[in-house]
């Protein structure tokens, strides 16, 4: 049996905001649409920024990419603030219980010292690289165009801070909070020859001006390579060496990467589909950064996994780019 509660209906005078109606037609809109489209100011800026007097406050020329309509993008996850924090809260709940389990069962003690040291040397230093990823994505929020993009960059940026913090907690779990592992990992990051190419790559990205190039260098090229190299290939190496419990601590990164990739791919695709100009420009950036990364990451790939590891990751990047239309 169904029960039917009667409520008073009032006839609305309009279905949604006018700018949403102009884009999507005269019908009720989703919260993602109302919260994401045509929000960034575009007109009648009062003053030029003292920090960049040749540009307007929100200036589309902060990248060489050209879009007829910057709101052509769409986040396939349809994240606005509310759906974003709720999705991440769910993921962190699982992560929290993984970390608690690892701690309570003393799983660190079950790993032999060699495995632990390998984690400290090859995984934990990434916490610094993730801080740079945070800064790079926040750059894209600050200087990018259109809320559909800038909000997703901020979510990505904050996610990277979280990953840096989870990686730090891995270091703390391995040494009972003494901080030794983190100190050693930082030493590797700043002085170990295996890491210096990677650090050079990262520092170079931090000086970039064009925010779309930042996205290419960081979210497309570097992340594809690093996440394949570390969270797939290195993960296997550790598992084979008897350290499979580490997987509990990196599940967040793997799940996050799958989720974030949906948006990274969609963004790339929309850009390339727009024009030959974009295709050539992005193609050039990808080629340049891919080449740098191949050299800069090779020493790390070798000590973390083995000689062929970097080529396997480059193959993954190639496939990804081909799928996006490059």
């Amino acid at each position, binding site marked *: 049996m169904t029960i039917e509660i009667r*409520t008073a209906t*009032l006839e*609305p*005078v*309009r279905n*949604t*905001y006018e*700018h949403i109606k102009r884009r999507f037609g005269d019908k009720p809109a989703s*919260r993602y649409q109302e*919260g994401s489209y045509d*929000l*960034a*100011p*575009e007109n*009648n*800026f*009062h*003053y*030029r*920024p*003292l*920090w960049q007097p040749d540009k307007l*406050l*929100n200036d589309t020329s902060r990248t060489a990419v050209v879009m007829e309509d910057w709101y052509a993008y769409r986040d396939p996850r349809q994240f*606005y*603030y*509310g759906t974003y*924090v*709720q999705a*991440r*809260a769910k993921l*962190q709940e699982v*992560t*929290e219980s993984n970390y608690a389990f690892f701690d309570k069962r003393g799983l660190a003690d079950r790993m032999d010292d060699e495995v632990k040291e390998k984690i400290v040397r090859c995984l934990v230093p990434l916490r*610094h690289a993730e*801080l740079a990823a945070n800064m790079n994505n*926040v*750059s894209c*929020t*600050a200087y990018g165009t259109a809320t559909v993009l*800038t909000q997703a960059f*901020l979510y990505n*940026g*904050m*996610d990277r*801070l*979280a990953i*840096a*913090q*989870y990686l*730090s907690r891995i270091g*703390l779990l391995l040494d*009972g*909070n003494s901080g030794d592992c*983190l100190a050693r990992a*930082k030493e590797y990051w*700043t002085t170990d020859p295996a890491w210096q190419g990677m650090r050079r790559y990262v*520092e170079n990205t*931090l*000086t970039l001006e064009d925010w779309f190039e930042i996205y290419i260098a960081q979210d497309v090229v570097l992340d594809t390579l690093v996440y394949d190299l570390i969270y797939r290939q290195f993960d296997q190496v550790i598992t084979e060496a008897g350290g499979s419990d580490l997987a509990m601590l990196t599940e967040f990164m793997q799940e996050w990467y799958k989720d974030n990739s949906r948006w990274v791919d969609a963004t790339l695709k929309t850009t390339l589909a727009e024009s030959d100009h974009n295709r050539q420009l992005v193609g050039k950036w990808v080629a340049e950064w891919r080449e740098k990364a191949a050299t800069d990451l090779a020493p790390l790939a070798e000590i973390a996994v083995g000689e062929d590891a970097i080529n396997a990751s480059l193959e993954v990047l190639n496939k990804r780019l081909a799928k996006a239309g490059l």
Partner: protein
Amino acid sequence: MSTRKLSLKDKYRILTRDLEWEYSYRDYREIFKQEAFEGIKITDWSKWEDPFRLTMDAYWKYQAEKEKKLYAIFDAFAQNNGQQNVTDARYVNAIKLFLTGVSPLEYQAYNGFAHVGRQFGGVGARVACQMQSLDELRHVQTQIHAMSHYNKFFDGFQDFTHMHDRVWYLSVPKSFFDDARSAGPFEFMVAIGFSFEYVLTNLLFVPFMSGAAYNGDMATVTFGFSAQSDEARHMTLGLEIIKFLLEQHPDNVPVVQRWINKWLWRGTRVLTLVAMMMDYMLPNKVMSWKESFEVYFEEAASALFKDLARYGIEMPRYAETAILEKEHVSHQAWSIFYNYTHAAAFHTWMPDDKEMDWLSEKYPDTFDKYYRARFEHWRELERAGERYYNPTLPMLCQTCQIPMGFTEMDNPTLTAYRQSVYQGERYNFCSDGCKDIFDHEPEKYVQAWLPVHQIFQGNCGGPDIEDVLGDYYRINLGVDNMDFHGSPDEARWNAWHNLQPAEDKLKQAS
């Protein structure tokens, strides 16, 4: 292996502050390009005290909990047509002003805090600013979602972003935030983080949210409660930045003092809109503007500046004028809007007898003496079917962009008027504060996009003012604008509640 216990501070240091490293492949100044040009001296970022030690996992957890509750209320509000429960339809004009005038500022804050959240060389400061950026995105989106249902039943909400970038009175808040965002990162923090979020927030945010609570607006007040803990974090960040700057180097003190002078004056001018909202637009009054100014500015600010005196910081320069003006600004601003309601995207009206008496009681020294007679006269005209609208275009202050309607405080019948000449051109100001701000950075303020100038220059369509209002501003003429009495908003409200329009009542009575 024994596990050491970490204090919250240690944990935050390890999980956030320690992520930073010393760059060696690139120069610090290539990575943080904007840290030096304002003349602020930072000697040691490690002295930054983290105002709230939130890691991302905790942030997600708290915020997700709040969002879940908030959206449950929005859903219930829409399902039950909660818009019918506000005190009366005049109230809705207060939140039209909010969505068109304030929500886009939340967006600008989201932009601005991302900018400084990238530019500061200290990771603690950067991350705190990034979290505020994310919060401000939350605010603009939840406000849009809260008002979404009102938009379906009332006029004037529908084109808020388009209007914010164009309409004359919305250039007051827009230019305020453009000003802050176009300044350097440290000035931005003094302008928004400190002056706006710390000193003035209780005069901006709280009146709207309390107004919602007093007038049965469940959607807005629930948003207000939900944002409270965000705002508490923003306030501690604002205070920390000031203390940090003042402690870093004595040379920072005069720079910061000048910014405080500027931004508190800029801020009080924007608050004029809130003043008239509190005194005139709320059917159920929370308190008078004068009272809230006394509590939240005079008392709170004097305690704050006493505290900052140890750094050599003094009470902001124009505070005295602002204090005298508390008796006048709401009445003067409402007069301006009543005059120009045909060019606005919300309705105005003259207070009824009971409301006039409330104003007399709350403003015993000024309302009857300077304003009542004028308002009664306008009411008479309206009753005679000749509702007064001012057909001219007003002159705007070059700095705050409010029409020149404020008066001298030693003679409240005389409109205040200041001028400066810069590169052979004359510029007009509403006050000493606005003139001084211009004189210090004329090359910045001559750039202002002044709506009235732009209309005269033909940049807003035309030739008639109706074309500007209808085509360029996208005001639905005869629907969004004009007096509340006779508006479609009023008619719908009366139909929902089986009420007679005020005119019919009047006719029947006579």
